[in-house]
């Protein structure tokens, strides 16, 4: 049998946390000895859900007793008051509309050209609870830092998501014989949503020979008089619009390079967790192939043209994008990348090599760098 005189201090912090269940007056009188008692208990049996529940329960009961609430609540007056309060709370909850759940399903990752200056169309599929009625107030493009930002020329709904596979330039042409294909203006109009919807956004690109990456759109809308904001993101990678002077048959090389650059920079700048994505950004477009421990460059490969190897430092044209890779260093399996955006402060990201080698480029803020792989 253990000696009951042994009370260790390694569980001191944990005991102090348990003490928080109790009111201050009680803690002043019994706190110190109760902590000593708990430390001995923890030392003997570190984990016991039943004990934890016991402490929490008695702490709360003590609080209630001290506030004389326990006696009050079990009385008839207290019971009646509580009943009224519960009814009022339930009524208030029922009267308050819950925000509609909008679930974006757009995959993104496309690169296409558009005449500049001009407007092209992007689609964002999203699900909604049946019966959702809302009014969209505004739609804004979410771009990539360092790249020009496209503006929104308009937004339409189609009643069924499978409509209008290739919507073409904005505004979309209405199809005369199928009413389902008729676009419904989305801005400033109250609409009843279906379970699956498509939002068509007219995106204006202004300057020739510039790329306009679109990570997603931010939508501000009213529902039952309350204002909400939701974000619809391209889940796998940004869509990239290359602004050209005239319609082209082949994708210009600068468009290909800069769209890869936009994906890479976007992936590097977005820390994991800040953007809800189903898969790492640029998964299909950028893969690192740098395998040697001596390498100091983050080498990127376009999977469609496997021989086309590019250093990320040379990939990003600062004159064009305003983004510069200041340095790339490799330490214990993690690339540390310093990125300068628009000549302003340098941002640091780290890219674990094993994640990159598995096919994705995922940037982490330095404070959240994963441990180096062995």
């Amino acid at each position: 049998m253990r000696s009951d005189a042994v009370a260790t201090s390694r569980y001191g912090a944990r005991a102090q946390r348990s003490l928080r269940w109790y009111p201050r007056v009680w803690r002043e009188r019994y706190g110190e000895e109760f902590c000593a008692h708990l430390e001995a208990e923890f030392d003997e049996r570190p984990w016991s859900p039943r004990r934890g529940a016991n402490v929490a329960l008695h702490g709360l009961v003590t609080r209630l007793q001290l506030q004389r609430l326990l006696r009050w609540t079990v009385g008839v007056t207290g019971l009646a008051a509580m009943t009224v309060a519960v009814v009022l709370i339930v009524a208030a909850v029922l009267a308050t509309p819950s925000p509609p759940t909008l679930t974006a399903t757009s995959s993104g990752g496309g690169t296409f050209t558009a005449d500049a200056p001009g407007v092209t169309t992007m689609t964002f599929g999203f699900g909604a609870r049946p019966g959702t009625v809302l009014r969209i107030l505004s739609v804004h493009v979410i771009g990539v830092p360092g790249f020009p930002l496209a503006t929104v020329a308009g937004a339409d709904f189609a009643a069924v998501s499978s409509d209008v596979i290739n919507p073409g330039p904005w505004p979309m042409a209405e199809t005369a014989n199928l009413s389902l294909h008729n676009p419904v203006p989305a801005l400033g109009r109250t609409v009843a949503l279906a379970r699956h919807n498509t939002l068509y956004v007219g995106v204006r690109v202004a300057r020739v020979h510039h790329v306009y990456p679109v990570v997603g759109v931010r939508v501000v809308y009213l529902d039952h008089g309350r204002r909400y904001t939701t974000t619809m993101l391209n889940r796998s990678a940004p869509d990239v619009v290359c602004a050209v002077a005239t319609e082209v048959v082949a994708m210009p090389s600068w468009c290909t390079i800069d769209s890869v650059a936009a994906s890479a920079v976007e992936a590097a700048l977005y820390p994991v967790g800040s953007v809800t994505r189903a898969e790492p950004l640029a998964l299909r477009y950028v893969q690192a192939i740098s395998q040697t421990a001596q390498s100091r460059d983050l080498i990127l490969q376009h999977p469609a043209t496997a021989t086309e190897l590019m250093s990320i430092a040379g990939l990003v044209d600062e004159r064009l994008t305003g983004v510069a890779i200041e340095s790339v260093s490799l330490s214990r399996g993690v690339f540390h990348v310093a990125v300068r955006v628009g000549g302003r402060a340098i941002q640091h990201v780290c890219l674990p090599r094993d994640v990159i080698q598995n096919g994705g480029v995922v940037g982490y803020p330095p404070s959240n760098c994963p441990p180096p792989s062995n």
Partner: protein
Amino acid sequence: MTSQRRPRAEVEGLLSGASFYILTSLADGEKHGYALTKDIEGFAGVRIAPGTLYEALARLEGRGLIEAVPSQDRRRPYRLSGAGASALDATLREQERLVAESRARLRRSWSVA
């Protein structure tokens, strides 16, 4: 029928559960909280959880049945007070009376000694 109806106040003054175990444990000397837990577990086979123990200690101290002993240690010992000894004695007498009553009935109806 051999038993008498007991005055309600007297019955309410009796000890039960954790209070009874604590006073019984303190009957042979002062102990701090964890020592009480271990002692009770030893003689009664009952493990009193920390929250329950300190709720009972606070209640018993409030009723004057136990007293905190001044100590330099974080673990403050408790001892049985005179009132506590009387309450424990009254409880034991009541339990002995109930045991005697129970045995008498068993003897009469079931011939169990």
